[in-house]
């Protein structure tokens, strides 16, 4: 185990999908410290999802190393998975099960059980304003409610690191506000958050640091305010984004 304060370290990380000569990630080096809210920003096909997938252990890199809390997936996959929480962009829940049944199942998979699990589920449901809907099936939920339950399923076990893939996409302002507020509170308790989004304004206010990536490379990295102050023509994160990634339309 490596002794350092970086909870995530990517060293010379590259990923080529089979049959492709173009790297999805091209020799990335990145350090994320404990307690950060780190934004991975980039246009479609920039390499965000590939990076998150490698950080979750879904598949390995073609070359380079990934250290999560000093551990590598090859040797400590189960340990790493127990300290991370993933909130995918899709509503990754069972529609025919109730909110409580979904959370109980995912809680059990994280090793939570008994009264502790029940208390934690009640606490999370209350925190996100869903306590009255605990016994309703997910398929009857609105988009915003589904997003909140999707989020709870990823943070139920109080992970050290949370990966959020577009957590606020397609929901109303109220749900977005609740989600971001609670994520900030969770972060204050010491949880590191890795976040991807297309909402630049949201990222600017939410993230402590951001990296703008395109074509598998990190184009710039830093605190949003420092990046904006870097050039006169930069007025906000969106202007930086457009300036360095261009205005050409991107496909996945």
């Amino acid at each position, binding site marked *: 185990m490596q002794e350092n304060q970086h909870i995530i370290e990517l060293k010379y990380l590259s990923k080529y999908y089979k049959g492709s000569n173009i790297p999805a990630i091209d020799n990335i080096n990145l350090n994320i410290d404990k307690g950060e809210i780190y934004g991975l920003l980039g246009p479609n096909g920039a390499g965000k999802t590939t990076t998150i997938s490698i950080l979750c252990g879904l598949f390995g890199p073609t070359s380079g190393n990934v250290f999560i809390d000093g551990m590598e997936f090859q040797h400590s996959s189960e340990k790493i998975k127990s300290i991370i929480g993933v909130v995918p962009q899709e509503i990754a829940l069972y529609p025919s099960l109730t909110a409580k049944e979904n959370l109980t*199942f995912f809680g059990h998979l*994280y090793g939570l059980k008994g009264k502790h699990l029940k208390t934690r589920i009640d606490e999370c449901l209350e925190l996100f304003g869903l306590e009255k809907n605990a016994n309703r099936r997910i398929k009857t939920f609105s988009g915003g409610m589904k997003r909140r339950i999707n989020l709870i399923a990823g943070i139920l076990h109080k992970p050290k690191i949370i990966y959020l893939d577009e957590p606020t996409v397609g929901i109303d302002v109220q749900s977005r506000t609740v989600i971001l507020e609670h994520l900030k509170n969770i972060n204050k308790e010491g949880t590191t958050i890795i976040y991807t989004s297309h909402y630049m304004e949201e990222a600017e206010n939410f993230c402590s640091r951001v990296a703008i990536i395109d074509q598998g490379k990190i184009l710039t990295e830093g605190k949003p305010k420092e990046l904006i102050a870097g050039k006169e023509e930069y007025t906000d994160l969106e202007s930086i984004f457009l300036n360095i990634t261009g205005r050409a339309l991107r496909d996945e």
Partner: protein
Amino acid sequence: MLRLLSSIYKELLVLIRDRAGLAILFIMPLVLILIMTVIQDATFKTVKEVNISMILVNNDKDSLGEAISDGLYASEFFQIVEEINGEKITEETAKELVAKGNYKIGIIIPERATDAIRGNVNALINKSFKSFNIPGVKKRTKKSTIDVTIYIDPAISNSFKNMVMSSLEEFTSQLEIEMFFRNFSEAMAQLMPDQKPIKFESFETIKYQEVYASTTEKEILPNSVQHNVPAWTMFAMFFIVLPLAGNIIKERDDGSAFRLKTMPGSFVTVMFSKIFVFLGVSFVQFILMLMVGVYIMPALGLPQLEIGPHKIALGVMALSSGLAATGYGVAIGTIATTHEQAATFGAVSIIIFAALGGIWVPVYVMPHTIKIISQFSPLHWGLNGFYDIFLRGGDLMVVLAEAGKLLIFFVIMLGIAIVYNNYNKTK
């Protein structure tokens, strides 16, 4: 263990809440087994029970015509039609009616057919006498062939056609023997006028006793139910591949599989929970299908399914067949990328396995190459095992080899799914 139990509970909840899916899982196999057994019951009935209509045009009006006519009427296998609206049927009409499919068979006995036989028999007697230097005593010794025309509906099954032909051959050969004996006796009487002529008596020196071989003391009578219930039970059990593969693909499509892969607990834990639940479903299906054989089929006029004394052997076969089917479902669900792929490949491959396994046509009548290929069909192993129990009275020791093959198939399928899943991680 908690992860496995929780996964099993979740699978059960998902399954129970899909009411339509649940109905399909349990009702469709029962409908299938009922319909197939009722339909196939006809092929197991004796021809007497089927009673197929047949035209007889007897232009002979002598011994051969009588022998064939009497034989056909006496057999009760056929419904004989010689007249329509009070008019004798001619050969042309018979041909036309069979060609239209109104009648399955038309038999035309030509004029003077008996005379032709008589000539042949007399020629044979004279030849025999000559070999002992006795002059031929029989006149009318012209040798000729007799053409009994049989019009056959092309839609008729080969086995039925063969049965009719062998019946006709039996009637005519009996007539030939009788005629030979009678004429021989008459010839002897001419040579030795003092001797009393020998009277021909038909007698049977060989009797055939049918005993269905069984390893138990009790003889199990093969019938449509004993054949079809195990066969279609195997077939229906394998169709669990479709909902199971669909369940895996749906989990992948709705993102749950993505979340599960990022959580502690391996792919194997998740898959085992599915195997456990769907194995339970296939076992319940199996019991329901047996109950249909025991309780519902007799109410429909079919024979009752005899389960026999070897319940443990039956349980082992049911579980190993269920495991083979679920293992196959897991492999297809893991490899297929869409519902369409899984449903098409799954269904067609099961039908191929079933055809090779002898569900429709027995393996022993298949061409040599197909026979060899059929040895690799899990439905063949399962069907053999169930036939061992239901038809041959086999016990656990008898079915262990087949159950073992099904279990090995399950392990191989699961291995393929695990290897493919790991391969995907390296993409």
